[in-house]
């Protein structure tokens, strides 16, 4: 047996691994005695405790057995090697029905929302464009803070300060950020920390909405929010959206009594529209009159590219708004954490909901996040991301019309990390998306954002993962791929026809 000093694995693991592979290859026979720990330690030049550790691991994994006083031997009837059955056993009759929640869940999964294909999401990751990635500097900072916070004394302190709604310090630091940067109104006790947006939204829905109540949403809206809202078994009322955000006149003309309204006024998903100031006022008045609870989703409003930021709506009537803000996604454990500011009237019930059914954000993450906000690293990274996205967005807004001309119709994309556009093309949606993927652009159809059928030939391009230098290359490649596809399709079409109908003037562009 040889040990590799350069290996990333600890020595005891290497020893255990070597013995395991010897057993599997058969060079150590079943039932064969192993050298005593002391002898092996001497032979390898390591300490005895290291060998002991390896033997203990092997013991608990069922590779060896130990008899007191007689040393260790390879297990005779080794059960450790095994395979997972890959096919499911015959599905037994589902004798007892599940809950009504589960039933609506399964019906939703199958029909209305094809996007719940969670395993498909996994496969899509090979192009990183989907993500809003943290800059490396933030990752390094996180590591640095984690090493500082991962100490017994600090953890013990945190354990004492544990609270259902999140560590007090974290909540107060984040609230002061929200107050400053988003003009949110509230006190510390009104803030709750959730580990994800879905969970937060779900909890809120459940304490506000009974089956059959009316819930209004922007149409289109973020797909995961749509899924969660639909699962509350509420009646969903889709409200159209234009370049100035949600159509408030349409909403106020509705005869229904709307219990909850979910919207993102500062950064509509996916179009990136911002609610105009007239509409904001009208909306607040309407909600006040009708007693509608407004769930204001303020996610990605940090990334606003207009002349000046619009403050959160929540300030206009703090008693009627529930404010949600999710940290930008990425790989760090803080990504997706959601802060919720609720009015006083909901404090008691949300507290109880979180205590009994929801969970707690891991304390270590809370500690590190607190430090990250306190030290200003968090805001700095937001700012640097915003600058980067702004440049990329400006570039794309210029490039896309240039390449596609009148065939493309761009959304305002005043905020967020995505651009929505509709495209006139002879190809199917899937073919267009396949072309984009081949060109390493993160393109999706907007269908999953809509309630009901959705629009054909409308796409979302998320640009957070792109870098400025490769954009032009990727867009150009995308256009070439599209042209190739079109030409393949039209083999049967007469050549003259083809030239007349050539979709994109790529040659002209190349010359220019």
């Amino acid at each position: 047996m040889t040990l590799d000093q350069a290996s990333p694995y600890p020595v005891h693991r290497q020893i255990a691994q070597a013995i395991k592979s010897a057993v599997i290859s058969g060079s150590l026979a079943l039932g064969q005695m192993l050298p005593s720990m002391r002898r092996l330690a001497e032979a390898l030049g390591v300490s005895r405790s290291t060998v002991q550790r390896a033997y203990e691991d092997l013991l608990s994994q069922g590779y060896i057995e130990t008899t007191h006083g007689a040393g260790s031997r390879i297990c005779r009837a080794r059960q450790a090697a095994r395979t997972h059955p890959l096919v499911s056993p015959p599905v037994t009759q589902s004798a007892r029905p599940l809950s009504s929640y589960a039933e609506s869940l399964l019906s939703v999964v199958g029909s209305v929302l094809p996007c719940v294909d969670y395993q498909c999401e996994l496969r899509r990751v090979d192009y990183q464009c989907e993500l809003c990635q943290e800059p490396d500097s933030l990752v390094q900072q996180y590591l640095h803070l984690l090493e500082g916070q991962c100490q017994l004394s600090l953890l013990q302190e945190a354990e004492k300060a544990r609270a259902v709604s999140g560590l007090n310090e974290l909540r107060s630091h984040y609230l002061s950020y929200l107050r400053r940067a988003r003009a949110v109104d509230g006190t510390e006790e009104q803030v709750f920390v959730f580990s994800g947006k879905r969970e937060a939204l779900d909890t809120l829905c459940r304490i506000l909405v009974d089956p059959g109540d009316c819930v209004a949403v922007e149409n289109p809206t973020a797909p995961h929010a749509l899924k969660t809202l639909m699962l509350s078994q509420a009646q969903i009322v889709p409200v159209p959206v234009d370049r100035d955000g949600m159509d408030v006149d349409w909403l106020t003309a509705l005869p229904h009594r709307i219990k909850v309204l979910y919207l993102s006024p500062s950064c509509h998903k996916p179009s990136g529209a911002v609610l105009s100031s007239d509409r904001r006022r009208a909306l607040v008045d309407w909600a006040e009159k009708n007693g509608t609870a407004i769930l204001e989703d303020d996610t990605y409003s940090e990334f606003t590219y207009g002349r000046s930021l619009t403050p959160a709506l929540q300030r206009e009537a703090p008693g009627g708004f529930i404010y949600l803000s999710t940290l930008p996604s990425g790989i760090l454990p803080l990504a997706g954490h959601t802060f919720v500011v609720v009015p006083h009237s909901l404090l008691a019930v949300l507290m109880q909901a979180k205590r009994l059914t929801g969970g707690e954000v891991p304390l270590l993450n809370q500690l590190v996040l607190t430090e990250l906000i306190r030290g200003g690293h968090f805001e700095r990274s937001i700012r640097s991301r915003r600058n980067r996205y702004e440049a990329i967005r400006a570039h794309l807004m210029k490039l896309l019309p240039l390449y596609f001309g009148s065939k493309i119709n761009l959304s305002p994309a005043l905020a967020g990390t995505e651009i929505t556009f509709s495209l006139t093309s002879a190809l199917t949606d899937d073919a267009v998306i396949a072309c984009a993927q081949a060109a390493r652009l993160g393109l999706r159809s907007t269908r999953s954002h809509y309630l009901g059928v959705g629009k054909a030939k409308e796409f979302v391009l998320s640009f957070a993962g792109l870098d400025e230098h490769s954009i032009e290359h990727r867009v150009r490649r995308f256009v070439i791929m599209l042209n190739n596809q079109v030409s393949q399709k039209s083999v049967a079409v007469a050549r003259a026809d083809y030239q007349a109908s050539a979709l994109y003037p790529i040659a002209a562009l190349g010359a220019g």
Partner: protein
Amino acid sequence: MDLIVNLPPKSFLPLHRQLADALCEAIDQRRLLPGEPMPSTRDLAQSLRISRSTVVRSYEELHSRGYLESAHGSGTFVRSEMSFAYGKQTELNKEKEKPRIAFAVSAFAVRLLHAEPGQFPDAASYSTDDLAPVLRSWKRLWRRHLKNTEEARSWAASNPIGIESLRKTIADFLWRTRRIHCHPDQVIAFSNKQSRLQLVCRLLFSPGDLVAVQDPISPEVRQMLSVYGARVVPVPLDQEGINIDHLLSIDKPFKAICLANDDHNGALSREKRRCVRDLAKRTGAFIIEEEAIPYTTTGGSADRYPLRSSDDSDRVIYLSAGLEMLSPLMMMSFLVAPYSLQEAFAAAKACTGEELATIEQLVLRDFIEDGLLEHHLRGLERLSNKRRCHVIHLVTKHLGRRVDIESSFGSQAVVINLSSDIPDSEVVQMAQESGLLLSALSNQFACPAPKGKFMLFPGSSKDALEEGIETWITKLRARGLS
């Protein structure tokens, strides 16, 4: 540092005046608190897209209005003592909130408010002190994944039921330690214990459903069932686990059987396992099996393995022992779903579940793969055995025949039978005053609870324990215990 200011769209005032007014408003509204730093002029100018000199000018104006103060070399701050006009706005905001009617909450919320207040936190059974040996390796694993983020990035849009490689590791771990044979897709990861139990209840129970629940069981389980509107039918235990005759005598159809595999309640015998499984097969009821204690070695008889290990009915939902001993480093927990429910769990996680942090999952995976988890568990087991012996020694020394101690293997707590006529609640209160972690077993029972049974958690410090027990016993004696 970002600050949002409200510049009027059309105004005849010069820009620096507009900005100064807007900043005053922000301070009046308490969006910037006294003593807080102001954003640097450069940052503000950049985010508002105006020239820096305009911002400098408006800051000067605020200085002269008495809103700001400067500390040499460290920037500009909101003045810490402000008496004038300040705070008017906040009262105004309070007014704004008042006249609104409170929202009508849902029926679920009403049930929530009526549930008995839960204890939180409940992880008293493990002490943070015991984490000392793992901190270093925990940090090392984080460093491994944060220094080289490639793997994490490749998983970034992660699967809502957990990263595949982690679930495979868990499946292997469950096989090694508990002889549970499952496909990684059946393993569902949760970011904490509560959300796991709540999802199980949510998927299975509609209001009014019957559930047969072993009695005693942890109060959290009973609470959660009641929040979901399920009706609990308590089934007593005997020497070999759940009382089968009693279970068979329930005449109405029940949806699930809830079992807790903890140590002071004795393991299910082979015969009983067969009965429970047959019952589940015949009636289609699910079995919710929760394990309380993480086991390390495969030692012991087959009776110690969970019901799930010999399951062929595909009705068992196995809630594996949480990794609470790693709290507050990590709070993830897992369940093994039956095939027929795997899809429902995955869909529920995708639609409503909490997000799992990618790197944290990778760290946990490596922690288990490197054998560190089992190593730590073995260490804890040795430690808790030692502590238990110590508690038993101390309690018997002081109380002698008044006390009867139930042996328990592997568990953190010692179960004490105290024969006295002091009410349980008083005994618990006295223990709390003496700094002991003691809880009455009676709150685990639904119907006639046995009196005088307590669980004592040794805690981590030997001296504190000795002192605590002595004060406790003195108090008990003062209350009339002979």
